[in-house]
């Protein structure tokens, strides 16, 4: 793991932990903002560990409201462990702590199914859409999130992220060109 990525991950996890330290009503919004910040790093570094942390934070945001106290405490402990292990360069133990964090989220997920989709899948789609918004291509954004283009296109088409730009070629001119291609 390169140093820059390591620094970003430690920052994101520490911020997440700060938010989770005391359970408060505005935590949910803060987690969402943090996960949006994480996605910028993903777009810049295209790093799998960063992707995994961005998805984890977004997933925590989604299941936060129905986490039991025990799950909440365990999650904080795992995030803490992930930070410590990463700082010490114990990547194996870091990965284990992240994996356990995902497991805790997955347990809560059973209670908050999103349109029959796993929270984690939903988080990947959401974060993939955020990458599209940053200007990455459909294939690049889907690929980074481990999604198919079908998943991402289906979702992104219903948002405004792929239609907020200025086209150089006017639509009527492009339509004219298309008709010409087909001899009309």
């Amino acid at each position, binding site marked *: 793991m390169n140093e820059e990525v390591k620094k970003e991950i430690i920052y994101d996890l520490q911020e997440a932990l700060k938010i989770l330290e005391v359970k408060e009503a505005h935590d949910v919004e803060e987690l969402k903002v943090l996960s949006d910040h994480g996605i910028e790093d993903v777009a810049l570094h295209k790093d799998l560990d960063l992707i995994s942390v961005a998805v984890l934070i977004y997933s925590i945001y989604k299941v936060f409201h129905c986490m039991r106290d025990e799950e909440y405490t365990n999650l904080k402990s795992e995030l803490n462990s992930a930070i410590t292990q990463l700082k010490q360069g114990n990547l194996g133990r870091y990965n284990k702590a992240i994996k356990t964090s995902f497991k805790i989220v997955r347990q809560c997920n059973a209670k908050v199914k999103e349109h029959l989709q796993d929270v984690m899948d939903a988080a990947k789609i959401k974060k993939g859409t955020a990458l599209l918004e940053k*200007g*990455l291509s459909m294939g690049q954004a889907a690929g980074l999130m481990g999604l198919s283009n079908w998943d991402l296109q289906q979702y992104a088409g219903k948002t405004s992220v792929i239609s907020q730009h200025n086209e150089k070629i006017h639509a009527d001119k492009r*339509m004219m060109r298309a008709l010409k291609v087909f001899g009309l």
Partner: protein
Amino acid sequence: MTKVIFFDAGPIISLVMSRLIFILPELKKHYGGKFYITPAVKKELVGRPLTIKRFRFEALQVMRLIREGVLEVYDHVPQDKTKMLIDLANNSFKINSKPLEVMQSGEMESVACALQEDAATVVMDERTLRLFIENNKEMRHLLEIRFKKKVEIDKAKVEEFSNLLQKINIIRSIELTGVAYKLGLLDPYLPKIKGGKETLLDAILWTVKFNGCAVTEHEIEEIKTYLLK
């Protein structure tokens, strides 16, 4: 010389999801040439969705098009050219001196094949590559706004990329739908009400947009006005 059009994955996905894929065989008959997809596009259209329950039937619809020869797989992908183009694209913009890799090589295949075949037309719904080819200034602007950071641009690379691809004519699934409308392929859906044509056009153009074609609301209005003339 046989006329050819290369298709990216996006427009086929948009048409399948919009339940408009039936227009493709008819469009091909009218075109009188070949409709090609590259192996990477085939993988995204068939291989990948076959493994996902939610999209398995969509994959079967594309498989049928391939089996019936409506879409043909182009096997002579110029790997060197694809690599050269992707290197140019992914090293054209930098943030904090780090190259911003905005595209995947699979997405560049269709364009590289079109150049090799001297084919003028590529059907592509993808916004990023289209902006890169047609309007790289807007691409930089988009990146700066979205990242809220200064984007360094390698002018030489951007110009080389644009020059190489300037002959490529890009159309989207929404224009294909417009062509199908003009050919009367959608007439069975024409409602017998006042303003029926406008209703039909609205319905088909918006469904393609909602299924992933990168088109703005303003463009839809322009296309509609043009087709209703």
